[in-house]
């Protein structure tokens, strides 16, 4: 598996990880070895096996639409490094939001 440093830098960026050039080359090799190992699976003939997306043989687990008590706002925000008016305070964001 040929994993490039460019790919690793891209993945690090998506994960918001700052990595040094030394770490970059180490990570490229280490991640490459992981992918090589997973590549072993390709030796199996899976042509006749239908794709699966879940490891358990279960489907359609759903619940009734019934309200259960929530946490109090104090409990909900207890782990927030900074809280104001019952809300988490986060630093200025430059990027737009998602839909």
């Amino acid at each position, binding site marked *: 598996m040929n994993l490039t440093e460019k790919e690793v830098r891209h993945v690090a960026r998506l994960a918001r990880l700052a990595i040094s050039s030394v770490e970059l080359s180490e990570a490229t090799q280490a991640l490459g070895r992981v992918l090589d190992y997973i590549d072993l699976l390709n030796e199996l003939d899976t042509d006749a096996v239908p794709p699966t997306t879940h490891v358990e043989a279960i489907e359609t687990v759903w619940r*009734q639409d019934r309200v259960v008590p929530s*946490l109090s706002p104090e409990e909900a925000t207890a782990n927030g490094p900074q809280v104001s008016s019952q809300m988490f305070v986060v630093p200025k964001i430059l990027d737009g939001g998602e839909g």
Partner: protein
Amino acid sequence: MTNQYEVVIGLEVHVELKTQTKLFCGCANGFGQDPNSQTCPVCLGMPGVLPVLNGEAVALATRAALALHCTVNSYSKFDRKQYFYPDLPKAYQISQYDQPLAENGHVTIHTAAGKRNIGIERIHMEEDAGKLNHLGQRLGDAEGSLVDLNRAGVPLIEIVSRPEMHSPEEARQYLVELRTILSYLDISDLRMEEGSMRCDANVSLRPLDFTGSLADLPRVEIKNVNSFRNVQRGIEFEINRQRQMLQTGQRIIKETRGFDDASGSTYSQRSKEEANDYRYFPEPDLPPLVLTEKWLKEQREALPQLPDELRQSLAERGVAERDAEVLVQDVNLYHYWSQVVALVSDARLVTNWLLSDYSRLMNANNLSFAEPKVSAHGLASLLSLITAGTLSGKMAKEVLETMFDTGETAEAVVKRLGLSQITDHNAIKEIVSAVVAANPAVVQDFVSGKEKALTFLVGQVMKQTKGQAKPDLVNALLREVLATYA
């Protein structure tokens, strides 16, 4: 390269479902509550929790899909869409990626060229994000933001149209019809100003000599516009901006743009050239969703009558097309209309009163037909007094206004004000004869051909009856008596 372009518009509409609880936990799904008062470890994104799907949300989403003529997939699954943003506590949104709930539907719009179906590519379910309250006027000036996660995990459906609209007006029509259809399903509040319905518009210009795939055209996405009118304005602005750029040889880049209400313009928010790498993968915490034929049949049977069916039945009842459209587009007005018509069978009479005098009073008082001021039963008794000849149209107007102000029944107002039309033939004839006898000169005028003289005599009779005689009856009797003078 050509200077001629075809406008290509696709719309993504998010609709919040009106369930009691969130999509994956039992927290209440309510708007306008105290910040962070409707959260739990699941929707706060705490480690080690397990989301469990809300069956009612699936039912509501499925009904929307069926009403929009989609194929509902018997097998669908959930996926994680990963991105970082403070309103998304897990740093991923549970959505549906390559196997959505439903596909291939359409919305019919009525254009000058006739009916046209705008395709729906897919409808999928996903959870809403939290709400950011920015400290400062605009996003760019904000020093920081306050995060309220009450909305995080609220069930949404995303309805993705095909890029098959070619003008801002078509986009508006698609949205109006989509909202009308959904309003009859009663699955969402559909309030754009409260964010329970949101719209993103994808706009691109296709040079007429471009033969490649539409997906290869640089597409601009206008995000989260808060009214249908602004969706239309945003698209109009974007078409002009892109056309000017193309005509001056500039390259359009794929990006996300915001809409500024005050200036009517769009502004760049973020380049999409490489940012869209969401690394979707199947959500391991949720098993696949398999819907049985029996369950789907139940959902289909739960569908109410939909706008196109209603338009047809209104036409059959003699309601003019324009009036029918007004009725159908306001689900509360339509339900009110149906209740009145069930009591007074004259559909046209009910329509006329509802769309003119009653609507005028409702609008003047800023009221919605969700909470009518005069009950359907009340309006029906008033209209019955007209059909019975007890009240003239003019009197009925006055009675309606009084009912509106005081909340009295029609009968009570009629009694209190001493209103009621004299329909007694003999009583009116007596007065007519007296008026004719008292005005020989006017009678002479009429006999010698002055039609206008009749108006004066009618006025005299109405005066003597305090306006309570039935005008057409007075007219007929006057002509009858005058004929003996000719």
